[in-house]
């Protein structure tokens, strides 16, 4: 019997959907045949949702090795007449930007939607880039929904627009859309189009200079047509009337609605769902009888700058507010927007003063989970380094193990981007003398962007230790499979790719695998590897152990540990040097294990000098 999936419910029903699920549903309703992604917060649930129903629908869904490959697969699908979706977090589009920038030149033959989930306030990201710029940069229109219902609707419309203009379309989401749940009324599901054809036509698909020069002229023409089309697009609309115009894009619209209600002011509201290109005919229409304008948008002044340029062209001499009152950093709130609008309308409005607690609250940053194999690896690395009396540079990367930046490990000296650990290690190795470089990278990240810089190191004889923290999943983003797991997005078996085999094949000097739970052996191998690097070698070590959350779920890790108080010396090594969240200190100074937190990895029992931790069975 086939499982009943809520995401496939019949048209007309209303269901609670996460913004990302709503985007997935929109793609299903349009009848896409291909969906691809590399996971990244806050985008991961889009393809995650599609992967679960791929078999039911008969569509092709995959977790790709990185965003560039994901983009290319969906792009090729749309070239061959199969509508497609590719989804990524904002910084993922940087990785895919090479094919992205040329995709406007060739255009497509079927609907092609590129979902960019931006992360204002950087809840789970290294920067706050506003990917609507990419639309202006690449001549690719941007749609920006305000809530889960519109996320679904604009995914369908976006694919239609893409197919109509034979041009890629960006759907820009943000954290407070992708990770907001709300009621969504479902529409009809069209039959997916899964089979394409690709007639030989290189003049259309090969961007050699001669073709590209011609295509550039076509893009400029298309761009004007798309702008005109957006002027009458029903998701852009004027609401209310007044001499003050609030132009609100994306989630900015939702905050504006509540802010206007809170302030109880009469303004004209222009809802924008197509921030790029901003349709000038619509602006002209909205400007009738207006003497002040404020733009509400999350992050950068993408609409504001276009609006100012349009107003200048149209000969308006009007004050435009926006960035000057709302800033460019962080997320919008109703209060922020209300404060900004109140200034423009000349009200003296202040938000309520929240309660102040008279004591300083301890911060609670995210930590490595109990039983996390990365903690054991960091612990072993610290001991190996101490034994050898060296002071390595720890070149870090993007993943759960970024948390190794915290005490007591302090082993992420630099974190920039996916694969950056090995790339930067190539540089440090040439410039910093007397300090070996250790690149620390996760399994999924290694496949994503770690292989080319590793080949570079081998080719250029650049000494380094590449330490792959292999927990056999993409844990940070929600346990997606990757090439090292040998499982495909729909759960069916794929081919397993071994990290150690790649390293051996390209000529890394020393390749070893260890289990971080076996602390003694881990220290020995790390020492051996570090020595080799000091001598000028290139070493790759794989610390392989399943993520403790997965292991617990699969019942591989059972039972919990406890402290034998007759043995414990209260040396606090387990608390101060290992810092497992399941180990706490009682008022009498003895450490104890919190049953509800312990995942049963047993590493505490291996590092305790008097073997005071015992398994509770």
């Amino acid at each position: 019997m086939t499982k009943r999936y809520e995401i496939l419910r019949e048209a007309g029903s209303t269901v609670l959907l996460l913004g990302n699920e709503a985007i997935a549903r929109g793609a299903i309703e349009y009848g896409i045949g291909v969906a691809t992604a590399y996971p990244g917060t806050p985008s991961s649930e889009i393809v995650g949702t599609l992967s679960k129903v791929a078999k039911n629908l008969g569509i092709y869904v995959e977790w790709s090795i990185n965003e560039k490959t994901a983009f290319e697969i969906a792009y090729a699908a749309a070239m061959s007449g199969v509508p497609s979706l590719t989804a990524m977090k904002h910084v993922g589009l940087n990785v895919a930007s090479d094919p992205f920038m040329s995709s406007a030149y060739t255009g497509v033959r079927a609907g092609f939607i590129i979902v960019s989930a931006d992360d204002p306030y950087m809840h789970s990201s290294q920067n706050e880039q506003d990917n609507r710029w990419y639309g202006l940069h690449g001549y690719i229109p941007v749609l920006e929904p305000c809530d889960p219902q519109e996320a679904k609707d604009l995914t369908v419309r976006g694919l239609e627009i893409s197919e109509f203009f034979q041009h890629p379309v960006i759907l820009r989401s943000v954290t407070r859309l992708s990770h907001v749940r709300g009621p969504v009324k479902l529409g009809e599901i069209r039959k997916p189009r899964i089979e394409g054809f690709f007639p030989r036509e290189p003049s259309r698909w090969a961007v050699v200079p001669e073709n590209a020069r011609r295509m550039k002229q076509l893009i400029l023409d298309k761009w004007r047509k798309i702008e005109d089309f957006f002027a009458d697009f029903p998701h852009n609309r004027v609401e209310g009337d007044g001499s003050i115009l609030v132009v609100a894009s994306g989630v900015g619209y939702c905050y504006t609605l509540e802010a206007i209600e809170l302030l109880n002011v009469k303004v004209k509201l222009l809802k924008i769902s197509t921030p790029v290109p901003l349709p000038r005919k619509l602006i002209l229409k909205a400007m009738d009888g207006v003497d002040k304008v404020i733009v509400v948008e999350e992050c950068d002044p993408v609409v504001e700058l276009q609006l100012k340029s349009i107003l200048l062209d149209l000969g308006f001499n009007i004050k435009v507010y926006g960035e000057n009152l709302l800033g460019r950093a962080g997320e919008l709130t109703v209060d922020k927007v209300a404060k900004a609008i109140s200034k423009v309308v000349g009200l003296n409005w202040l938000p309520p003063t929240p309660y102040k607690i008279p004591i300083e609250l301890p911060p609670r940053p995210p930590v490595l989970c109990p039983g996390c194999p990365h903690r054991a690896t960091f612990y072993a690395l610290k001991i190996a380094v101490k034994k050898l009396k060296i002071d390595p540079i720890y070149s870090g990367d993007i993943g759960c193990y970024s948390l190794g930046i915290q005490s007591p490990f302090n082993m992420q000296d630099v974190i920039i981007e996916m694969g950056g650990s090995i790339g930067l290690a190539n540089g440090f190795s040439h410039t910093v003398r007397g300090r070996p470089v250790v690149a620390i990278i996760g399994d999924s990240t290694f496949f994503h962007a770690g292989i080319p810089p590793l080949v570079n190191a081998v080719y250029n004889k650049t000494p380094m230790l590449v330490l792959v923290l292999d927990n056999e999943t993409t844990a940070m983003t929600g346990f997606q499979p990757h090439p090292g797991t040998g499982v495909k997005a729909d759960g069916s078996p794929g081919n397993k790719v071994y990290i150690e085999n790649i390293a051996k094949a390209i000529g890394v000097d020393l390749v070893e695998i260890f289990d971080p739970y076996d602390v003694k052996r881990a220290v020995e191998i790390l020492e051996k590897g570090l020595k080799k690097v000091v001598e000028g070698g290139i070493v790759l070590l794989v610390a392989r152990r399943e993520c403790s959350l997965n292991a617990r779920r699969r019942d591989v890790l059972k039972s919990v540990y406890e402290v034998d108080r007759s043995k414990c010396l209260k040396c606090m090594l387990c608390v101060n040097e290992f810092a497992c969240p399941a180990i706490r200190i009682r008022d009498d100074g003895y450490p104890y294990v919190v049953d509800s937190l312990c995942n049963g990895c047993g590493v505490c029992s291996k590092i305790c000098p008097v073997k005071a931790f015992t398994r509770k069975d």
Partner: protein
Amino acid sequence: MPSKSFYKKRLDIVIVGVGGQGLITFGEVLGRACVKRGINIRIAETHGMSQRGGSVEVFVKLGEGVAAPLIPPGYADIVVATELIEALRGVKYLRKCGWLILSDVYIPPPTMKNALKPGEIIEVLNKLPINIIQVNAEEIARELKDFRVVNIAMLGGLIAFIEHIIPLDIIEEVVEYRLGEVNKKALRIGYERTKEKIMLTKFTKSDNCSES
């Protein structure tokens, strides 16, 4: 009955706690029940890095005309704190005379020395112009021999306040379907014990909030 003060067009609820306590599930269950009842709702949550044992906030807004996903400080009608220290962090969201539904779960940050003790936390909270009721969710979890039910026991406590909006049987149905029998029990016990506390006025009502 304190729940009378929640007969209004909209309700803003902030759920605070520690990553791993099931706050997203809490919000999702509430949301599904609302959709069943035809009530408009927005739930904003954070995923990813912040979930690894860090502080977590989930914003729930329900009622007609609700659009914006976040609740700014000073607006929430109810704050549900599934952990005591996080209650101190989350109380800034409460409006004057709002209700804090507090659990008995205490998880001091692992590296913290001389953490504030539960008694001291409640003492600090009692001085604020808010109303406080405690749901002994950990006790319920211990009785049911499953620590994962803490969140749903707290949800039961919340329902005791808002059953005029979402009746217990609707939420029970969702919990049973999504999470199974133990959670359904936790929900009911959380609800009943909170209800009883309300009846017996076993809660802290601020002197500055006499009207409701």
